[in-house]
């Protein structure tokens, strides 16, 4: 069920990769003395049903890549095609709706609304989509139960552990059933045991939703090795693209 706003539909791209990045360049402070060329001619495809890890040293442009792919930041040149839509050509408003319907974000620091309970955090995207409050709550409750937070739904983020908070964040990202999950160090703030739990959750999600892709930025080789593929970025360029499974 979607709201009344006209939304961009994913085109029939069954045989195409979900994401196609071509000659992507990103410069900060473009044309100024302090210009920084972060991403340089990046090219890669991400097919559906794949979980990809992006690795690389600090400052190499991993998070920037994730942000521009997710439409949180603009790129300087090149193109990003998601599900048949070139996101460089769509308006700001369309991008917002596109993000709402098709992309789920997960951050290292969870980025939950600290004044909202776990349940409320998860219902927000549904309310934005126009769900009735009752439907939104019901669906969010189911989602939180699925991630094992059935007994923590009415807790504020400050009252949850890091792993629990991240599971709320994942629930919020998954609740709209997006085709693409972008995770920026989703386990970076968690211990290894909790990290493993989170990765299992990702794996289960992608198993249950083969049309979906998950892209996570990570420093951890262990985490990366649990993905299907590792894309290494160095000095703003794709240094290697290793398919594991």
């Amino acid at each position, binding site marked *: 069920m979607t709201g009344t706003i006209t939304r961009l539909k994913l085109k029939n791209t069954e045989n195409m990769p979900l994401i196609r990045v071509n000659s992507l360049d990103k410069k900060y402070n473009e044309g100024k003395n302090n210009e920084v060329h972060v991403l340089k001619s990046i090219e890669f495809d991400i097919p559906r049903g794949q979980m990809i890890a992006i690795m690389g040293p600090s400052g190499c442009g991993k998070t920037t890549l994730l942000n521009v792919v997710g439409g949180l930041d603009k790129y300087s040149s090149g193109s990003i095609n998601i599900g048949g839509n070139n996101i460089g050509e769509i308006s700001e408003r369309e991008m917002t709706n596109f993000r709402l319907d098709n992309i789920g974000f997960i951050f290292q620091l969870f980025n939950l609304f600290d*004044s909202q309970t776990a349940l409320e955090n998860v219902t927000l995207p549904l309310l934005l989509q126009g769900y009735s409050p009752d439907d939104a709550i019901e669906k969010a409750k189911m989602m939180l139960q699925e991630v094992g937070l059935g007994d923590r739904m009415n807790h504020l983020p400050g009252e949850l552990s890091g792993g629990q908070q991240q599971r709320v964040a994942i629930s919020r990202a998954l609740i709209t059933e997006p085709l693409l999950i972008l995770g920026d160090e989703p386990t970076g703030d968690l211990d290894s045991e909790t990290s493993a739990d989170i990765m299992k959750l990702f794996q289960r999600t992608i198993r249950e939703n083969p049309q979906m892709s998950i892209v996570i930025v990570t420093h951890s080789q262990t985490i990366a090795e649990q993905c299907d593929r590792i894309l290494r970025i160095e000095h703003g360029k794709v240094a290697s693209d290793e398919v594991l499974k």
Partner: protein
Amino acid sequence: MKSILRRKQKNLLTVFSVTLAVALLVGVGAASNGIYGAFSDSWWGLNADTDITIEDPSSTYFPSNITDIISNSADPNLSTLNGITQSIETYSNVLYSAGKIDAKVSMYAIETDDPQFGQYYDMKGKVIDINSTLNSQGMPQVIINNELAISLDLKIGDTFQTTIDNGQGEPVPMTVKVADIFDAKLGRGREFVFRPASRYVINIAQVQQKMIDGMKDHINVIRLSFKQISEGGVLSRNINDLDINKQTFPGKEMLENAVDTLKEMLSERLPTAIVRSERNVAAENIEENLRGLVGVLNLFVFMLNLTALLLIINVQAMNFDDRSYQTAVLRAMGSSRGQIFRIFLIESSIVRVIGSVFGLLVGLPYADWMQRTINALFEMPGADEAKATLSQSVITGAFTLGVLLSVITAAIPAWAASGNSITEELRGIKSTKTKNVSSRWKIIFFGVLLIIVGILNASNVGEFWKVEVWKNIDNHTPIITSFGLSLSGIGLLVTQFNKRFGLNISAIAILGLAYFDMFWGLTIVEEGDGNNLFTILLLYMIIGSAMLVIVNFEAIMGTINKIFFIFTPLRAVSQVTTKQLIKKKSRATLLFTIFTIILIINVFVSTISVTMTESLVNQYEWRSQGNDILINTQVPSDNITAEIMNIEGVTQVYSFRSAMIPIYYENPNTDNADFDINSDLRFRQVIELREDILNPDGDWGENSYVITVERVDEKLYEKKTGISELELMDLSKTIMKDFFAERKFELESNYTSAETGDIKIEKFDEYMVLGDIFATSGSDIYMQAKGENGSEVVAAKQVTASNDFLGPVDGFGYSLMVTPELANRLEVFDYIKSPNLFLVKTVNGFFDDTENQRIALSIQQKLNNLDDPNSLSSKLGVLVGATSRLIHTEMSALWKQQAGFWDFLATFASIGLLIGAAGMAIIAMRSVSERLREIGMMRAIGFSRNKVVSSVIIEMVFLGLFGLITGVINGILMSYMFARNIFETRMVLPYDILGAYSAIIIGVALISAIIPGVRASRIAPSQALRYTG
């Protein structure tokens, strides 16, 4: 310093808010200071160098050789006498062009060679040589003040006709030439602020020439001037030496002794003379007379300062709130709590001192404007050109207070911030304080303490459960305070079982007490002056309302959220925003409290202003009973009524005799220690009422003319308040019947005094006077009259009822009305045998000023125009001197004068709106910048830009709305209470102004939200997500 510079925008906002607050402190300090300053300066300076005046109201004129007696006296109390002068001061009329006349021009006839009494200055500031100017040969020359010159369009060289009293009340015409125009605001010619600001000065010898034989050396005022300290005396006329609070100045005692000496010296020659020092009277009365005015202003000052303080606290709280993360980092790095406290304190103090300096820079011109406004409002000399005299103490006080408040308000949150939980802050969780056992006992202890203090305080008042105790307004403050304390204490105790319920008890108790007193307590008040009560009631209203909102904030927000959930696109926005508001509850409370205070003040001022205007004018429309024009003539004549009736448009004329006479409010016999000539003597207008004019059919029926009464004596008639207009009319008819009933005189007492000889005090049988606001029903008044047995003084005992007919209309309103029997015993009516006061009804409506003005001018022309051989003046061979007033215009104009005060308050109060707007803008900006990361999160999960802006708008609009609702409700209730209990009229709500306030508040909220909201929504979400405060 690095930290200050790094946080440029935030610190600039802080500087701005402190600047505003300090500017306000300086401004309002100067305003209340300025009221005293302006008044004392004016009252003090109005007498120029005159220290003592001698007048004789009973005989009006007296021989000038009295001055020789004083001059030749060797009494030590007069040893520093520097100068003595004699003058004739009276009202005169000025005929300045055909038919146009101003009958209220004060004439000042002076001796021209007495430099001890100051000088006149022309409009260029040059001293006018009075001696040569006023001693010219030929046509008498006068100098006129600039205000008279403007109002009558007179220039140097013009001539005009005036009339001089011949000493027996008969006017003698004289044509004079304007030799110069003097500045009314400078030197000797300064005008007394409450007298009509029009005066011409003439040589006394030329006036005396027009007086009858035997009175050619007569005068009516003697002025004395004493040596100042600098000239070897003990007296100082320097305004800076006047101590308003102690009501004294150097030389006050000397003047008191001199007054006593002079009274004794003149007791035989002028037994009824008034000898007084206006300077002493002013010194004693300035504080008392201004207490009410300053009280209202101080209330406003207090409220505005409170808003300024709340603004500073709010900004401080925000400063520390959004730095909690850095604090935690610093502490994690090893900084001690003390070190962090010092860093914050130093940093914020620097910012605030800068703000205070700017505040002074803004505050000084603001204060200057404030003083000019006050001066202009109260017609103080030098309203335009005088530089505001700001006292050093106001400046230093405001600056110190600004800095001190800033530092204190910085220190408390700084200390609190330095003690926050490191781990929680680092994780971005708001520090939580857990309630332990000891804090629970503290609350219980505090609650019990409040109850005990409240009960002890109540016991001081006595039997507060008895209505009698409430009749004294001075008991209200302690009773209300006691109840407030006790009920708050009970509320605190209840919080231990149910926090919200307990706090609601306290809030409702505080608010309820204020309303209870306003709607019951104040309605039964009969005595006391109620110092500070209104401040306390206002405080209770503010605290109670704020508490109610705070305590129930979550519930209110929950309801608002539910309402917004009806609208699908607003659901997510509402959920985020209402929770955000709950999270920042204390800050939200501060902001809406600021708006509450500001709106209470603004709504109150505007409502009362409109209430007074509308209700008074409408009330008098009814009271005027169809009268539209009031005509006074200098010369009484039986022909005038017919002349007026012949004017087209006139439908009816009522004719009266009237005169000004001295009235005593205490028995003036010399044995009466309570009698004080300064406070117990007033010159009042008396009007003779005749039954054949008012009640031509003898039945008080349709054709009767009834003087309505407002306050009715309990003894004769049942006291009634709040009665309908028709009931009032019926009551008036009853009273008028009694008023015209036959009376007798009775000898009340017989005094023999060594100084004054025999004085018989006779009283009327009963009730022969209709009183006014100065002589209320049932009160005793005394007037000099011819007794039946040839006695010198007759006492008129007891006023029948107080009439409020035509209220403040000069020449009729607030006049004493007497029966023909009594009028004929007043000496003044020996000279005024015919009517000189006329009430005219026209075919036009009360509000038709244009047509009524045309008729009024026709009447004047027909009576005054000496160039027209058919005018009454030409027929009688003397200028009749008719002046006209439109009753409606007079009502409105007089009200406008009073409205000036409310306008001033409104301007004053609207400054509060500015603070509110600034506060709103600051808080919106800060709120958005703090929420930048959250905005990034919102954008990341699918909130559109519009939704982000909507979120900020909803937050600000609701804060504004809370303030608007609580402020407007309390403001209206307070206005209602004031209108009903204090001004005794019906409240009129100024819907347009209330609408404007609502629009302003919502507008400010929208603008404050939209600008930073749109800016923030344009920041790339990725960038917003990196924001750490």
